[in-house]
């Protein structure tokens, strides 16, 4: 077992006060066979009502809002998490939704062809796809956005961790392997990270196509979904035409 201390902090400032702000966060480490929370705190700007719950994918959520105009929205999620490296999640709830392509993993002709070309026998198809995606794509920030679908990533051959994950998920599903998108922290990166979990019939196994490795060491999971759109760390909406600036700070350190 390993012990990690994590701290996730976001401060968004607005050029003018915003009205009727609502938010929904998935900023706490998941609890499952691998991860246990030893200690946790979430701090959110005052003036907001907040509640916590679980979404339909099984992720912990905190949601809330305010009717008072605000200049800043800030939240911090911090704590200690214990991880059993060799344990796996074995949750079979809603397995079906991870077998079908979702909005951001939809296949175009090129992807169907690519998936078909993966015919030769591989002991571990998921692992093979993981390295394939890793080799095919270049890690280049600011060339894609949160709405870029996997087929476009394949066309551009570049993107960030989210795009690597989407392409890997799309190919796994095309080969009949249930796959889901995972959001979380990775030691030494200073930001949130995205990777993939595939289901082997019993266990959910983590793969990180960005780094071409499994996720046993140094990965703390926050949430999962069919693709990015199901499990962003933060969603929000408000009234007001303003400029906003967001500072995010992530620390994950093994103790």
């Amino acid at each position, binding site marked *: 077992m390993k012990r990690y201390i994590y701290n996730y902090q976001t401060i968004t400032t607005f050029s003018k006060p915003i009205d009727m702000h609502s938010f*929904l966060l998935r900023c706490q480490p998941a609890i499952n066979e691998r991860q246990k929370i030893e200690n946790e705190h979430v701090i959110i700007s005052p003036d907001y009502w907040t509640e916590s719950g679980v979404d339909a994918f099984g992720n912990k959520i905190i949601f809330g809002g305010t009717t008072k105009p605000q200049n800043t929205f800030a939240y911090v999620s911090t704590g200690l998490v214990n991880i059993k490296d060799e344990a796996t999640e074995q949750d079979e709830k*809603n397995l079906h939704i991870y077998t079908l392509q979702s909005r951001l993993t939809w296949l175009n002709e090129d992807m169907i062809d690519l998936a078909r070309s993966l015919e030769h026998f591989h002991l571990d198809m998921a692992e093979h796809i993981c390295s394939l995606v890793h080799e095919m794509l270049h890690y280049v920030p600011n060339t894609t956005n949160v709405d870029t679908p996997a087929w476009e990533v394949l066309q551009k051959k570049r993107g960030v961790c989210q795009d690597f994950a989407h392409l890997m998920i799309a190919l796994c599903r095309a080969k009949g392997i249930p796959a889901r998108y995972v959001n979380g922290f990775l030691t030494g990166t200073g930001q949130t990270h995205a990777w993939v979990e595939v289901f082997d019939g019993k266990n959910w196994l983590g793969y990180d196509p960005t780094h071409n490795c499994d996720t046993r060491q140094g990965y703390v999971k926050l949430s999962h979904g069919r693709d990015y759109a199901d499990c962003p760390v933060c969603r929000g909406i408000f009234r007001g035409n303003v400029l906003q600036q967001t500072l995010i700070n992530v620390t994950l350190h093994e103790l």
Partner: protein
Amino acid sequence: MKVRIKELTESRDTVNKWMERYGVRFGVYKNNVFKEQLFPFDPIPRIISHEDWSYLEKGLKQRVITLNKFLWDIYHEKNIIKDGIVPEEFVYSSKGYMPECEGINPQDGIYSHISGIDLVEGKDGQWYVLEDNLRIPSGASYPMIARQITRRVSPATFQEGDVAENRNYADMLQGMMDEMNAGRGISVILTPGRYNSAFFEHSYLAEKTGATLAYPGDLFVENSTVYYTGLYKERVRVGCIYRRVSDEYMDPMVFEASSMLGIPNVMQAYRAGNVALINAIGNGVADDKGIYYFVPKMVEYYLGEKPILQNAPTYLPFFKDDYEYVLNNIEKLVIKDVSEAGGYGVVFGKDLPTDKLNELKALIVDQPRRWIAQEVIDFKDLGILEGEECVERKADLRAFVISGKETKVWKSGLTRFSRNPDSFVVNSSQGGGFKDTWVMEK
């Protein structure tokens, strides 16, 4: 009934004048410009005999009760899939299936509170269900207001007293909303705004049910409770939302992130059981064109009864036998694209030249799951007034079923007809008109 053309023509013009007076319109977008049109009213009613109605009423209740059970099952235990009655591909790949609704328990287990079941009557007198509409079926307001006006314009017509009242739709709706509200607060009808094609209906139903018409921005969530907010930011709790905003725009925190039409975090209030949504979110999975095929089987599965209403004979190329049949008989079938709505994704094999037929066949071979095929039903035509003449046109019937603690069928419906003599498509966005539907009490 003896058709007295002169009186009917006169009454048609007067009634249509009154419809204009009351602003009975629907909006259409042509080349991205919003236009409001009058919905042309034809004065010859569709008359449904007492016997036919007793049959339809029983069948509609049975069908809607079943569809509600199906929706509960899909978002909970999924027994119908486990038992192999409906293949899982048809459920989970349906656009209307919303995984975000897994495990939500709507008030009294009801999903489809307002169901619009589209039927046609064959030449042989047999009724067939063409489509179930369980998301936001619209159109009840038109026969309601048409009846109000025709009774005023030609009172003599109704003096015999055998035509069932239909202006009670608002009471049925209000009664159901009260039950779903369960005393938690006010009831509102949430409209996307006046540029929605059915805005007239939204505002008219609000007036007639006494519900508040809410616009985007009027509602907000605090502590998982929905409130309607006033000029001074004063508030009142909302217990029931009859929403005319589609699923994907209802909550920007869960669905379409940029939606300004919805209510942020309303899904959390809904999941917590603090507000009823009418209809429930995620109903699209049950009125999917592919799922339609399985409805008669569902009736047997959930109720252990023989289905009373019949589907139009339907084939799913997904199944091997049907696949062969469809490819061999395509020229006499209606082919429907499951991934499209609004009447545009419907093709009649008989209308296609050989090259187009082959193209279509190739598409079916490529993606069998995407298509359903149906035998063309020989509709019984209805008489409509074209100028001063009575001519025969295709027409369908949308029956409305209201499900609160009880499931009730409205004794009327929206009869739409096609203006074009060759067209089988009676969608109002394609230029048809409507008739009142008379259900005979005796």
